């Protein structure tokens, strides 16, 4: 950045210095010529400094204009115009000074005249180079490889001419003519590149026309001024070399004038069609808006609004409505410059005339319904076009466009709006898919939380005693289940145990599980008999469980003093008890209804108090139905028999080893590592 700025300043300074030397040298040359004095300065100096001036300015504009990416086309033209304006103002003020001087001696002095001429020429060349640089940018807009090459050749030729001018190196006239012809041809070919004009909107075109016109005016003014003064100087002295003798100057003027004339004419002739181009551009933008709306907009409604707006704008409709069908809310109507009553009237009219079109839900064809509108009285509209909006092969709505003139819609318009409607359909579909994905993600997140909660509700440490050891495990499938187990020491000889299975899954199951935990911890401390525990728990749960959910549970109190297990079963899987004395395991079958099933006070009638005694070596297995209902590939259930066998075969081992053998045989049976239910078991080994 700094470097460019410095270069701009440096080149400008160089141009200034070159010009000062040029003016001085030229005047000196003229003076010595007039006085017929041998000149101290070589004759080539003015020419050489002129070249330097041109090259320095060329680079000045190159850095200043060519590298500036922020300029749009009108800005560029404005820059040229502004340069012209300043140059003209300076030139006019010089004229004013001359006018004020009148026909004094100074004014007619040839040296002074030369000085004024030099000023004007410098301003003219400056202006020409500014224009040249701007034209270069315009020509090379959307450049191709060939265009760039042609331009390089053109510029090289111009440089060649410049050098040729100053060193007076004479080549055969035919070569000169060929070069001139080539450069003219190239200039003409390059001047035909007007792609930028197409990108101007209507207003910009007018601005450009004005700017170009004024620029032409300045060019003509300068050309005329410089020409007049050079002629008047030439009349007096032969040493003077007028600018016309520089082929470069002529080439530059010709090129700049040609391009400006071309541009002016092209813009002028493009004016009537510019609205079409603008419209096309707007269509593209609208199209983009619809397809992008899904990322930026938060709801379907904005997609509908954009669709309505875009369609109306692109076909110049006088009014429109968009009707979205929705099974839940009965549909929505978006209108544009039309009242709802009018909409309803038109629809009713069409219905009366038995018109099958996109306005009818079942139809999915775009239809021009204008002819049916003709028979409708009291309606300002004479053209009607309707489009279906389709999402996943389902017609979700209709777009209707209206015009006050008859036959207001052509095929082209139908095609455009059709594309809009399709794109809107895609946008809405994407939007819905995204919504679904969000919901799924949220649901998954919720499950994760529920699972964590459920995990944290299970005890990390279980009560142990000299009389028994307890181990437990619980594994759940992806879905959160509601298996719960816990232990609590009531006093030095009594320990309470619970195993429960909450109906349902997910967050509700985890929630009920936490209620069960609360009930267990508060009730068990009061040491009720197991049946009382169940009836109290039932009464408490009736108020929390919703209709249809229940908790199956078994509650145990192990009394080490009397070596007795007191228990009550409320709809839970019967406990498996292994007797070391007989070597047989059996299920303790008894009566008991799950918690939450009976909501009245007669629940105690549905549960029992049971007791069994235990001896060292006995094993008690508490489990949930996930284990017995676990299926293998053939669809057979693991069942109680297998469980019984596993316990009988491993009863001699420690509780941990018994548990491991249960898990092992379970996984061997199901034949996979993926479980489809919750496995929970608590093993109590007496000693």
């Amino acid at each position: 950045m700094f470097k460019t700025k410095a270069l701009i300043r440096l080149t400008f300074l160089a141009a200034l210095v070159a010009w000062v030397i040029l003016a001085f040298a030229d005047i000196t040359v003229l003076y010595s010529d007039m006085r017929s004095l041998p000149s101290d300065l070589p004759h080539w100096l003015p020419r050489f400094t002129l070249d330097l001036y041109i090259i320095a300015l060329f680079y000045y504009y190159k850095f200043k204009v060519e590298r500036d990416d922020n300029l749009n086309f009108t800005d560029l033209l404005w820059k040229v115009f502004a340069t012209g304006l300043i140059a003209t103002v300076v030139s006019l003020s010089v004229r004013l000074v001359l006018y004020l001087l009148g026909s004094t001696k100074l004014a007619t002095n040839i040296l002074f005249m030369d000085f004024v001429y030099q000023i004007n020429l410098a301003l003219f060349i400056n202006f020409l180079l500014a224009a040249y640089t701007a034209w270069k940018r315009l020509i090379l807009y959307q450049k191709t490889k060939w265009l760039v090459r042609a331009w390089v050749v053109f510029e090289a030729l111009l440089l060649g001419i410049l050098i040729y001018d100053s060193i007076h190196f004479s080549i055969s006239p035919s070569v000169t003519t060929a070069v001139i012809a080539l450069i003219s041809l190239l200039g003409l070919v390059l001047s035909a590149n007007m792609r930028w004009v197409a990108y101007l909107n209507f207003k910009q075109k007018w601005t450009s026309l004005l700017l170009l016109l004024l620029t032409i005016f300045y060019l003509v003014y300068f050309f005329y001024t410089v020409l007049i003064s050079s002629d008047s100087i030439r009349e007096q002295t032969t040493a003077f070399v007028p600018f016309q003798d520089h082929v470069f100057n002529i080439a530059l003027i010709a090129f700049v004038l040609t391009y400006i004339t071309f541009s002016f004419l092209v813009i002028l002739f493009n004016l009537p069609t510019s609205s079409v181009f603008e419209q096309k551009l707007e269509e593209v933008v609208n199209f983009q808006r619809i397809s992008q709306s899904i990322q930026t907009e938060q709801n379907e409604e904005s997609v509908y609004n954009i669709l309505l707006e875009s369609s109306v704008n692109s076909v110049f409709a006088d009014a429109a409505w968009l009707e979205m069908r929705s099974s839940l809310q009965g549909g929505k109507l978006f209108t544009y410059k039309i009242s709802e009553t009018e909409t309803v009237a038109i629809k009713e009219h069409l219905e009366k005339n038995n018109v099958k079109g996109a306005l009818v839900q079942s139809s999915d064809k775009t239809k021009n319904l204008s002819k049916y509108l003709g028979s409708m009285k009291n309606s300002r509209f004479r053209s009607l076009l309707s489009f279906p909006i389709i999402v996943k092969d389902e017609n979700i709505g209709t777009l209707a466009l209206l015009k006050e003139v008859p036959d207001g819609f052509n095929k082209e318009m139908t095609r455009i709006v059709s594309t809009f409607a399709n794109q809107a359909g895609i946008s809405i579909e994407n939007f819905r898919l995204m919504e679904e994905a969000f919901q799924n993600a949220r649901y998954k997140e919720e499950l994760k939380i529920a699972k964590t909660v459920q995990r944290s509700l299970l005890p990390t440490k279980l009560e142990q005693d000299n009389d028994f050891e307890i181990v437990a495990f619980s594994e759940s499938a992806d879905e959160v289940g509601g298996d719960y187990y816990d232990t609590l020491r009531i006093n030095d000889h009594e320990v309470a145990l619970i195993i429960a299975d909450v109906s349902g899954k997910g967050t509700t199951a985890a929630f009920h599980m936490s209620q069960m935990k609360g009930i267990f911890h508060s009730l068990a401390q009061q040491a009720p008999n197991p049946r009382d525990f169940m009836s109290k728990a039932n009464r408490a749960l009736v108020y929390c469980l919703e209709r249809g959910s229940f908790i199956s549970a078994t509650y145990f109190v192990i009394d080490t003093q009397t070596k007795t297990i007191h228990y009550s079963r409320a709809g839970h899987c019967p406990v498996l008890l292994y007797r070391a004395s007989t070597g047989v395991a059996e299920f303790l079958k008894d009566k008991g209804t799950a918690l939450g099933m009976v909501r009245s006070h007669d629940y105690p009638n549905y549960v029992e108090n049971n007791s069994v005694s235990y001896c060292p070596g006995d094993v008690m297995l508490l489990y949930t139905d996930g284990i017995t209902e676990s299926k293998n590939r053939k669809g057979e259930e693991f069942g109680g028999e297998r469980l019984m066998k596993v316990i009988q075969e491993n009863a001699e081992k420690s509780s941990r080893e018994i548990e491991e053998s249960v898990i092992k045989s379970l996984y061997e049976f199901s034949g996979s590592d993926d479980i489809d239910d919750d496995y929970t078991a608590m093993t109590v080994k007496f000693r």
Partner: protein
Amino acid sequence: MVHIKRLQENGADIVAIIGEIDASSSIELDLAIAKSVGEGYKKILVDCSALEYISSAGLGVFMSYIEELRDKNVAFVLFGLKEKVLNTFSILGLADLLKIATGKEDAMKLANELSV
């Protein structure tokens, strides 16, 4: 997957459940029973002879109607339960809360007795 059929016989509404009842299909069962109760039948028989499996959610559906049926004096009888299904009912203690008969004839008889 479940398929539920309803047919009327001797003033009783017979709801036949064909297939398995799990958490998602329990909604269909709920709807069928609600319809039957809503239509004012005083005798509702549930044919479980083609019921292969019932999950706790399905049992919850039956459970949730117990009180309403008692209040409305509706005779509600299940029949033709397979051993496995019956086992599920009895473990949970639902067998004590619901009337369960072996065959259709028994069920009809039981329903007639109850609605007297």
